[in-house]
């Protein structure tokens, strides 16, 4: 068996450059003659712009040019778009105002883009921006999703009355309402899913370079999907024709969703580089990241679960207000709808589910996909209400779940999804064993003897990954197909270049994709190069998000390798004077069954290019193939996370005492990398549960606008996590993979909050469960604490 093939913990090929400081992130790059951009941002959440006086600013040292919304409008550029159309209950399309690249007459959130100053140095651009005089007529803001639909709330867009972008529904309403009417028990819960700021460690950045000789634009930018960026910038914004625009996403320092979207800054830089005929570089300061990266989550929900006397779940009704922010970001409308409502059946054989979601505009930064995107919100809701049901009906939380698990596959839920495979008992059993569930009462008693309150919480999650069958998402409103492409180019020396439309920004594709090539061809891993993130080199691609790179991207690669192998065997048959059906390829050597004939991979490759030994009228010279792969279904990773906390009643500090995660990701290509993905995901989930919250005050000011105010999980906030795996191979793609990138962030928040509410003996506590909130809950236990 290959030591670098599927299933091996191969050390990462990409690490050398990162551990030696030789990584090349966008801000590390420079272009000859480049200028620097600084964006003047609105300090107000909502204001009319009466006028902008640039007189002093344009005369400031080093200023090359200053652009405002009127310049953009004069050039006829389109605004930023949302690529997913959602419909309301009455069949009408979602309602949204325009999303200008630079504000025209109104600003709608703190951080909204008012002007772009371009100067010889960044310091000059920033200094000149201070000289711009903007005459604002400051207006009241609608900053809170809970009240933004009230008639008296200030309007974000005239096009969306009551700040309602859509009121969407999914599921079987009559059956759900009937189940709730007739059930022995109804469990009710009001939940808030706190707003988060993604905070990839590399701030967003862009360098745009226009070549007046060829009329070509090159944009280096921090993107998870450079081909999608090119498509949007050319087809919808109209910055440049698609064939004249090259988008390169070099090393990218984390994304977590926030770098999927096409933002104003890279758009403006690209457009303006042609205006001034010089390269323009922009790098966000962290404060700008806080203000203007798309945020995540921010739901307020009411849920009711109908439960029979024996604990059988009969129906679930969910009503959610989802904050969209001030403008629709690139995929904003899909996140609280088709990535959320479709997962509300969880792991349970629920006969009836009905979900209603209002998409609500507020005067806050746009909200879009953040690690998990809709699925963490769904999982939080269902796993919190199931745990609450267990407590109210005096069931063991593990057993109530087990009683309702889906056990026959495929399983059609009432909310679109058709689960293809899974074994939820296997995950639960393994997690119970790892956490030593039977020993919990003793641990709780021991903690009590030390004056600590210990609690345990479960989360048996399901998610939908591998986004996704193109026709399926198209029928739900997506403006794009969600296939992936791969191209395999074998050089005459036998070295292999793989061009993939997936993009790695921490996931380790340069290693895992190479492992698949090693597995299939048997060449040394150092002979394989994975190329990604450049529209000038990779034919096309949809990028990396939704845990799709393995199940969709590697499946495309598998198909391209099928073609390579088939052609190579035909050539080998000629070179070895044998029948193509008798040729075998193993460990980089072609053999003829029943003979001792051999042909090394490199000899075959050279033969393919010299083309001396086979009829080129039948077989084309060369060895290069590509494939576009469209998945058959979503994939459905699942698992069981169990958290134990210890709370200090004197301080309200919660310590994660034990965290067990057992996941079923199907086939695992590199267990080391998969474990790393789970660990990172859990850390973000614990961050949501205990530490992180984007908080706007009533005027729409972001109170948590820096790492001083927004609590990122640090090393001493977290323990080691205890991980385990079970495996049911995904039948919907040739790799058998389900995806692992988001599971940790999806599964862990309800496990943590279930553990805290167990320890405190309260019904709910809002995330993040800060020491102040925990302490307050202890001081005055109530059914619902704040």
């Amino acid at each position: 068996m290959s030591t670098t093939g599927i299933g091996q913990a191969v050390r990462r090929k990409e690490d050398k450059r990162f551990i030696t400081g030789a990584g090349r992130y966008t801000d590390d790059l420079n272009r000859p003659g480049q200028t620097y951009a600084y964006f003047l941002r609105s300090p107000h959440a909502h204001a009319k712009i009466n006028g902008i006086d640039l007189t002093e600013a344009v005369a400031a040292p080093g200023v090359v040019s200053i652009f405002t919304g009127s310049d953009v409008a004069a050039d006829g550029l389109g605004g930023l778009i949302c690529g997913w159309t959602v419909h309301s209950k009455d069949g009408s399309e979602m309602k949204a105002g325009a999303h200008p690249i630079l504000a025209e007459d109104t600003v709608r959130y703190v951080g909204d883009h008012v002007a772009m100053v371009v100067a010889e140095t960044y310091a000059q651009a920033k200094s000149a921006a201070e000289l711009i005089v903007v005459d604002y007529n400051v207006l009241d803001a609608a900053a809170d999703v809970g009240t933004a639909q009230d008639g008296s709330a200030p309007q974000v867009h005239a096009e969306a009355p009551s700040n309602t972008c859509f009121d969407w529904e999914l599921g079987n309403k009559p059956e759900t309402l009937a189940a709730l009417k007739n059930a022995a028990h109804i469990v009710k819960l009001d939940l808030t899913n706190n707003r988060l700021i993604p905070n990839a460690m590399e701030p967003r950045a862009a360098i745009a370079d226009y070549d007046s000789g060829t009329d070509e634009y090159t944009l280096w930018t921090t993107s998870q999907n450079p081909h999608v960026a090119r498509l949007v910038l050319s087809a919808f914004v109209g910055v440049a024709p698609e064939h004249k625009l090259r988008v390169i996403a070099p090393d990218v320092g984390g994304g977590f969703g926030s770098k999927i979207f096409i933002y104003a800054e890279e758009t403006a830089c690209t457009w303006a580089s042609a205006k001034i005929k010089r390269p323009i570089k922009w790098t966000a300061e962290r404060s700008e990241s806080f203000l203007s990266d798309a945020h995540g989550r921010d739901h307020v929900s009411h849920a009711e679960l109908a439960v029979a006397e024996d604990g059988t779940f009969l129906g679930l009704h969910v009503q959610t207000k989802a904050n969209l922010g001030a403008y629709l970001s690139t995929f904003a409308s899909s996140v609280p709808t088709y990535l959320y409502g479709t997962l509300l059946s969880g792991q349970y054989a629920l006969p009836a589910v009905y979900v209603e979601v209002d998409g609500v505009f507020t005067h806050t930064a746009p909200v879009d996909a953040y690690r998990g995107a809709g699925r963490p919100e769904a999982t939080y809701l269902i796993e919190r209400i199931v745990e609450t049901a267990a407590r109210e009906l005096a069931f063991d939380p593990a057993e109530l779940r087990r009683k309702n698990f889906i056990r026959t596959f495929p399983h059609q839920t009432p909310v679109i999804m058709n689960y293809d495979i899974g074994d939820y008992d296997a995950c639960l059993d393994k997690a119970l064993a790892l956490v030593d569930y039977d020993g919990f009462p003793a641990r709780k008693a021991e903690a009590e003897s030390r004056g600590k309150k210990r609690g345990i919480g479960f989360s048996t999650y399901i998610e939908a990954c591998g986004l996704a069958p193109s026709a399926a998402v198209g029928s739900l409103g997506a403006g794009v197909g969600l296939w992936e492409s791969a191209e395999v180019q074998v050089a005459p020396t036998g070295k292999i270049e793989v061009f993939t439309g997936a993009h790695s920004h921490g996931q380790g594709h340069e290693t895992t994709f190479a492992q698949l090539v090693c597995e299939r061809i048997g060449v040394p891993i150092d002979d394989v190069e994975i190329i990604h993130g450049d529209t000038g080199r990779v034919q096309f691609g949809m990028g990396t998000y939704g845990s799709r790179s393995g199940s969709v991207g590697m499946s495309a690669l598998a198909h391209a390798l099928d073609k390579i192998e088939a052609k190579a065997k035909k050539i080998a048959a000629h070179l070895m004077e044998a029948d193509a059906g008798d040729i075998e390829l193993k460990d980089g050597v072609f053999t003829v069954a029943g003979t001792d004939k051999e042909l090394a991979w490199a000899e075959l490759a050279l033969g393919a290019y010299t083309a001396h030994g086979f009829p080129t009228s039948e077989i084309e010279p060369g060895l290069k193939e590509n494939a576009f792969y469209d998945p058959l279904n979503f994939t459905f990773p699942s698992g069981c996370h169990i958290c134990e906390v210890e709370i200090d009643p004197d301080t309200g500090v919660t310590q994660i005492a034990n965290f067990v995660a057992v996941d079923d990701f199907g086939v695992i290509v590199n267990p080391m990398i998969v474990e790393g993905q789970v660990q990172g995901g859990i850390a973000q989930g614990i961050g949501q549960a205990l530490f992180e919250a984007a908080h706007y005050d009533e005027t729409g000011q972001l109170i948590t606008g820096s790492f001083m105010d927004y609590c990122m999980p640090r090393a001493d906030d977290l323990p080691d996590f205890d991980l385990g795996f079970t495996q049911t191979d995904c039948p919907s793609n040739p790799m058998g993979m389900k995806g692992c990138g988001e599971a940790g962030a999806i599964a862990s928040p309800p496990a943590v909050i279930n553990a805290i509410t167990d320890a405190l003996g309260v019904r709910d506590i809002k995330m993040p469960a800060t020491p102040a909130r925990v302490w307050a809950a202890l001081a005055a236990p109530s059914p619902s604490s704040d």
Partner: protein
Amino acid sequence: MALVSMTVNGKPVSGEVEGRTLLVQFIRENLSLTGTHVGCDTSQCGACVIHMDGKAVKACTMLALQAEGSAITTIEGLAKGDDLHPVQKAFKENHGLQCGFCTPGMIMTAVDMIDRIPNLDEETVRAELEGNICRCTGYQNIVKSILDAAETTPA
């Protein structure tokens, strides 16, 4: 503008800087040593950690002129030729990095930590990492990398 001179990774360097130029800007922009990263503007994230006169400091939190005459080591100066520093090796071996952006600061912090503190344990490593933020790894493999390197580094 003023002239500033220092030794960086064993080589004497000098350059014209403004009074407001940060050390990290001098390193990245004047010297083109872009391994030292800027991840925040409040001295919190630690992506810019370098060594100045043998101590780990955040290069975003001092002016270039304050480093006059000092000896600086950046991530680029840690390996001896192709021979990686034990902490660099440990980060690769233990999957202590994902996107790689926080990694140079993490490694420079780790080298300093191992130099200062004998017999590192997990709790100490986690406490010492308080000034370095990673968003990808959940820290588990960073801690593992540092403990591994500490074991293989002679005291």
